[in-house]
């Protein structure tokens, strides 16, 4: 078996989490942030959307504004969808973590 290990992932843990959530379906930013919170990853709104803006800038996700209703008010919120490049980045990261996990379990079993 080749010992070739995937490269160090290009995305942070939070970005990996966000991309993972978006692989399931398009989501508003608010929902991604709440979901990240349930994993214990807490970021201020500004820091979170700064991170999402970077993902957009690097074409890993696409974002757009969509109108929703709150009571009798029409409000818009930012929704995101993952791009093919985003999917690839997520898969590379996942492969990296799996390879690291596999390498770790081999060392334990060899010990």
């Amino acid at each position, binding site marked *: 078996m080749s010992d070739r290990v995937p490269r160090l992932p*290009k995305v942070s843990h939070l970005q990996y989490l966000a991309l993972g959530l978006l692989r399931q379906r398009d989501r508003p930013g608010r929902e991604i942030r709440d979901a990240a919170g349930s994993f214990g990853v807490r970021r201020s709104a*500004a820091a979170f959307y700064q991170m999402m803006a970077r993902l957009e800038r690097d074409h890993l996700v696409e974002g757009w504004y969509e109108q929703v209703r709150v009571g009798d*008010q029409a409000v818009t919120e930012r929704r995101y969808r993952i791009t093919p490049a985003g999917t690839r980045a997520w898969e590379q990261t996942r492969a990296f973590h799996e390879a690291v996990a596999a390498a770790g379990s081999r060392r334990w079993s060899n010990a």
Partner: protein
Amino acid sequence: MPNEPAGPVHLVPRRAAAWFEPAWRDLWVGHLGRLTGAANRRQAATVQVRYRLALAWLVLDCWRLSVFDRSQSASATTTPKPREPFQMFASDVRHSVRRLIREPGFTLATGLTLALGVGANVAVFAVVEAVLLRPLPYDAPHELVVIRNRDQQTGVTKPDVAIGDAVDLAGRQSAFSAVGGYAAGQATVFGEGEPFQVHALRLTAGAFKALGVRPAVGRGLTDADSRVGAGPVMLLGYDLWLRRFGGDSSIVGRSIKVGQETRLVVGVAPRNFGFPPSGTTDLILSGSLPEAAPAARKEDWTFMLARLKPGASVAAATANLGMIAGQLERDFPATNRASTYYAVSLRDEVVGNTRTALILLLGAVAAVLLIACVNVANLMLARSVGRQREMAVRLSLGAGRNRIAAQMLVESLVLVSASAAVGVGFAHFGARALVAMIPSSVGIAGLAEIGINPTVLGFTLLLTVVTALGFGLVSTLATASDGTARTLMAGRAGMISRGARRASAVLVAGEMAFAVVLLIGAGLILRSFAGLLSTDPGFRVDQVATVELGLPADRYDSLPAREAFYQRAFEAIRAVPGVLEVGAAVVTPLTGNHWTTSFERTGYPVPPGERAPLVGWQVASGGYFKALAIPLKAGRFFDQRDRPGNPPAVIISEALRRQFFGTENPIGTTINDGDERIEIVGVVGDIRRAGLAEEPRPDLYFPFERSPSQGITLFIRTEGDPARATSGIHGALRSIEPSVVLLQSRTMADIASDSVQVTRLMLWLLGIFALIALALAVVGIYGVISYLIRQRTREIGTRLALGASRSAILWMVMRQGALIVGTGAAIGLIVGVLAARTLESMLYGVTAADPLVVAGATTVLILTALAGCYVPARRAASVDPAITLTVT
């Protein structure tokens, strides 16, 4: 469904907009959800507060991220490198704050000293910014000038220009792109409900063009409007247009009666337009200058306003006007001999002599800051004893010198910034107190709203950075060591280097010098002020009320109507309890009035080619002299014999009698007024009509009884406090004529007090600054001598043990202090006498090198400073040698 509001994206930096917008919408959605769920008003209010706090936090967070986190410029996926310089800076700030908290005595002493110094500077600068630096509210205001007239024969300067000269100046000048006449005053508007008073500005088309007024509605004044005989037109002030005419644009084209003329409204002035700059302008009325200069060149007068041609200077305009004045002098020697014209920038005109006062104050307050800095520097030097050891340890452990210097700089930056923040707080209140002392004659708009604006904050920042750099340097030099081991040893012994000791003594001597300079300045102003207050103006200012009034133009157009009104008014006022005398005059004394007229004694014609001498003039009733207690030297006051229809009469002042009649009795002789002969019926005492600092000049008085005008000032002598009689006087006037306009009511004592307001402002502030400087200098010398004694305690103990007397020790220490004080005082004395020359324009009855003031200021400083030395010297003399030799 209501529309969604826009996010406040303007609150964050542009680079943060991309993530602020979705974050704010996120916040907004949550907020609306909570608001919808709120059960009552109280809950809804809580939700609103919560939203506002969250928004504020979001904005701050966006600023933090865009300022301190530069990782967004890298790839989304790269891990940002730690920002070492920032982290080091943050760590130095934390370290500095901890150190300062650990030394509360040092922090409080230096912090408060600096806060006072910075606060005083910022307060004075806030006023300087508003008065001298803030642009006037006109297009290219630096190009606006007014034209003034100076009579070189009498030395009198006038703000207005004779009509004949105005026409020729405007026609021959080549320095201005626009020039014209103006006059500001009150006017009554009729036919729009009840008649009402407004502030009116009469402008010729040239002056309108010079001001660069762009009407909000309709058109401006044109050359055609300013021709003699043109139909009178006007522009409404923006506020008046909104207030009285509901902002209706169809007002343009309507005619409105103003005073005795019906004027066509041609436009509306722009919002916030006012001239003079501090004034309100409700109406801009068209005015005119004759096309050719009239034969009687100096019968009528106007104020003149002009705009310099682009690139032209005030000096060039003055040269041009001077050349024309020379031509006029040659062409019309009988009227224009020794009469010259010059240009003054509009800002200088409105600021007046407050400019010199403020610049001097800025210098004085900077000296106070320098003295405060010297004290703080001395404290830092003393503190450096302990820190030399700390620095030596750090150097020996491998810290770079630059790193240590940077830390010193950050420490002083933290200290100075905190002090500056407190200082700005002091300045906020200080600036308001200062404004209250600025003379009301300073015509700058917005003085009331003076405060800490971005320019003032910029100045504070500059001051903070410069001061912090200075202290950083002092600390670095004081704690720098040439050899670690030596410094470690010196540090253990708690010794400050010889060089640092000498530097400290030099700094305190400099402090002494600054204090002497300020004390001399304050002393000179104090003597001037005392001199002004003790000056006899030639009349009594106490127990006199003045009431400035205007009569409705349409009802009091005729002389008999005015005469009847004033006769009844004087009777009614005399009946008010407490009123002793009442009189009227056109000019209020001590308000800077310099009206002059030609004087020619009958039988003494002016030689051809010569100009008749100019003398001051006033229109006054007989009661005016009695109310102001101006003494009658010969003849009589004006009375019923001087009413219209009787032979014309005039009263002269003693100075005029001395100059033109010598020992001859002037009563019964006549003077010429054109073809008319006017009999001199009385001689009265001289008064200082223009101001307390102005010498009395020859004056002519014409009878008010003969030509009572619509606008005058009443002078009322009362038994007690004149301010109390004012309401009774107002009531008496309104009972005769309900629509009489009472413009201003002040006591004569207040008017006299206002006339010395600039001197008072200087006295207060220079006095306060000089006292602060003196106190800081004494604290400085006390600190230095105390420190020197602490270092020499062992030596003093040894001397005492070897038989030195306590008085010898006292003398030894005092001699050391006296050397520092004496050196500083000597330098301060020389600099002070030289610097006092800048005060000369504000001095009255005292020279810049007044020996009493100079000697007094130096003595006060030397005695106070020696007292500061005496306390530690006494302590040194009472040292117990047994203890010092064993313990130290």
